[in-house]
């Protein structure tokens, strides 16, 4: 040092300040407030919340299975995530764009700590998403018809996605100093989302995406889902941390903590990725359990009014609803069918997990009715038709092969007790029609109505219930006799016979 410096300069005391950590938190708070009040983020949240309110009104026809609901919370947070990405990126680029960087560079807080604050400022947005996700899930869970269990790991995906998108925006701002980069990245992400949304088999690589929804498949019991949800959440958390640490590292935060953070979070992401890849392929035990679910599932059985109801344990609360339908249909039937004990068994084809879409084969045993895992809406007249088919034809398989006048009685039993029978008729038919021939859906194989049968059923449904009910009970034996013609059934029930003769249009 030169002679000038040897004079002892007077140290001037500075005001007492706290450590850098608290300042980083203060900056994170500042940035979070700006993020949450920025126009794109506010708009995205408004749309997201409006979607939740609108969607949960009629979702799942009021009978949600919570192991489906948790997955359903994963898509829409992406909208907020994209807005957060764009804003977080512009916040990182702000001081460069406004020419304050040279000034801020002389302030105490180094740029990498500012980047830490930008990353931390994403946390409140993610927490807000978590609240929205919890709200959506709670609203479904409190519906009286809700069954099943949600998975916390699946519910965590929405908030983690928002963190991931935001951290990507911060990282991008540290790599490319252009305001155009983030919008272009968003377009590419939208592309990827649009193309990967195409239905297909989910394999190990598809689990590398932020979320894998698999919404189109059947509703399965929780333990047959076979989704590596927990590992995926771990993988996502690892990726989020890795991106965040990488952004801090690129901003010049070359401390041991940051370096260790990059390595550890990368290890976390890789671990999660590998384990979820392992979990994406169904294990032999899971495959065996899925096959059992179709042939001899482990069900809990209870008695209601002489009938037996067997359901997967998670669906037990729904047995009363089924029993009400069975009672309604049975009370309309005549002869022995009026008192006949039925066995309602829940079955689902889980062989291919959520990717499968195979119909459940009809039961061949007498008095056995199959019920699926979904309820509400069209599923009610479908189940009702299956019950009526068993009462009229003896078994589900026989009901599927019906092609004579018994179909009239069957459909009348199935529909007449419902609130709006004509509407139920259209909903239970594949083409939503109330005239002409059509396929009638049931939990197992579909049935067929000819044009003439449809006309007769429609006329019957237009008449008052008690009168027809008495006729059905009075002529039950003849009406359920194999080979009875539609014209004869119409005559017995007191409506005009169809113009065309019976013909099963198989």
């Amino acid at each position: 040092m030169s002679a000038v410096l040897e004079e002892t300069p007077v140290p001037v005391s500075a005001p007492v300040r706290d450590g850098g950590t608290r300042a980083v938190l203060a900056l994170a708070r500042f940035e979070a407030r700006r993020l949450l009040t920025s126009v794109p983020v506010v708009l995205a949240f408004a749309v997201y919340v409006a979607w939740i309110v609108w969607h949960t009104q009629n979702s799942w026809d009021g009978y949600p299975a919570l192991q489906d609901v948790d997955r359903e919370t994963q898509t829409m947070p992406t909208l907020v995530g994209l807005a957060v990405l764009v804003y977080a990126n512009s916040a990182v680029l702000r001081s460069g764009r406004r020419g304050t960087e040279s000034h801020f560079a002389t302030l105490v807080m180094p740029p990498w700590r500012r980047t830490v604050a930008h990353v931390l400022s994403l946390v409140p947005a993610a927490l807000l998403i978590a609240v929205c996700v919890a709200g959506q899930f709670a609203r479904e869970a409190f519906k009286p018809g809700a069954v099943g269990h949600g998975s916390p790991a699946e519910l965590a995906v929405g908030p983690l996605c928002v963190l991931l998108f935001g951290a990507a925006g911060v990282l991008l701002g540290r790599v490319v100093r252009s305001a155009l980069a983030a919008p272009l990245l968003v377009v590419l992400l939208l592309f990827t989302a649009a193309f990967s949304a195409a239905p297909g088999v989910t394999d190990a690589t598809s689990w590398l995406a932020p979320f894998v929804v698999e919404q189109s498949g059947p509703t399965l019991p929780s333990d047959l889902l076979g989704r590596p949800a927990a590992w995926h959440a771990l993988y996502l958390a690892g990726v989020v941390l890795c991106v965040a640490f990488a952004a801090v590292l690129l901003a010049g935060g070359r401390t041991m903590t940051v370096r260790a953070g990059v390595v550890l979070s990368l290890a976390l992401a890789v671990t999660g990725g590998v384990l979820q890849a392992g979990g994406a392929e169904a294990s032999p035990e899971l495959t065996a359990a899925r096959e059992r679910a179709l042939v001899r599932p482990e069900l809990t059985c209870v008695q209601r009014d002489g009938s037996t109801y067997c359901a997967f344990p998670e669906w037990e609360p729904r047995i009363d609803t089924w029993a009400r339908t069975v009672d309604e249909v049975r009370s309309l039937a005549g002869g022995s069918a009026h008192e006949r004990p039925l066995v309602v068994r829940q079955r689902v084809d889980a062989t291919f997990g959520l990717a499968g879409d195979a119909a459940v084969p009809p039961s061949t045993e007498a008095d056995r009715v199959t019920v699926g895992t979904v309820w509400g809406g069209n599923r009610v007249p479908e189940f009702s038709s299956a019950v009526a088919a068993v009462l009229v034809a003896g078994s589900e398989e026989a009901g599927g092969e019906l092609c004579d006048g018994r179909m009239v009685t069957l459909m009348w039993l199935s529909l007449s007790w419902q609130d709006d029978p004509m509407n139920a008729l259209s909903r239970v038919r594949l083409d939503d029609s109330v005239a002409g021939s059509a396929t009638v859906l049931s939990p197992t194989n579909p049935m067929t109505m000819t044009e003439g049968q449809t006309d007769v059923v429609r006329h019957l449904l237009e008449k008052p219930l008690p009168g027809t009910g008495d006729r059905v009970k009075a002529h039950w034996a003849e009406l359920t006799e194999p080979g009875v013609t539609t014209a004869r059934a119409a005559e017995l029930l007191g409506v005009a016979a169809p113009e065309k003769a019976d013909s099963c249009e198989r």
Partner: protein
Amino acid sequence: MPPTVSASGLSLHYGRTRALDDVSLRLAPGVTGLLGPNGAGKTTLLRVLATAVPPDRGAFTALGHDPGTPQGRQEVRRRLGYLPQTPGFHPDFTAFEFVDYVAILKELADRGDRHREVRRVLEEVGLGDVRGRRIRKLSGGMRQRVALAAALVGDPGFLVLDEPTVGLDPEQRMRFRELIAGAGEGRTVLLSTHQTEDVAMLCHRVIVMAEGAVRFDGTPAELTARATGRVWSSTERDPGAKAGWRTGTGSFRNVGDPPAGADLVDPTLEDGYLLALDGIGTEVTA
């Protein structure tokens, strides 16, 4: 008074351009003025002293710390207030938010204390009433005061102000002088300016720079004294004068080496400044 900032042998090159050439100086509490033509290296010197750029050679200490080490630089930055020549603004921020933002970057972490401090400095620069207004809605003079508030926040011991009075009207400039004079009480203030009146009115010391080097270092009176006997008035522009211009009274005021029998007049600080730049191809205007 013992120095709070001492620099020795500061040199900085931008490619082949020598922006700073072996600059040594010592600053004590109070306002020190830094004069010099455009391109003299004033801004570079201020940027070095504000720890924005490290010097190629030489060293300095500020407030007892050596910015040559990472730890020392942090310590200096904790006690530093800097007003850059072209301060950027975030137009979407309110005046309060902007100063608050800078205060956070100065690591004033406690929210309540920080907000009190931000309100205090905004009050001090006379922006208390408009602190909730967005910067895009503020006039140029108000923006300049926001920048000064940002420099003052956190009660720094060492203030580096790069041409803070540029673009201000006379009344605003007066107000600014008051602020800077107030800030100079107990603090070390280095003020770069083109306005010799600023220096004459505010500074207890003045440094004149040209071509990256210090040409004069002393009190304003000493700088003025340099021109004693070297300013004269005449009816025609004196061809031997280093600078000359027609004054409002019609006569010419000449600076330089006077001819024998010249009508000598009292010098001003500006005359001393012009003479300190002697030999440098500067444009002299008045």
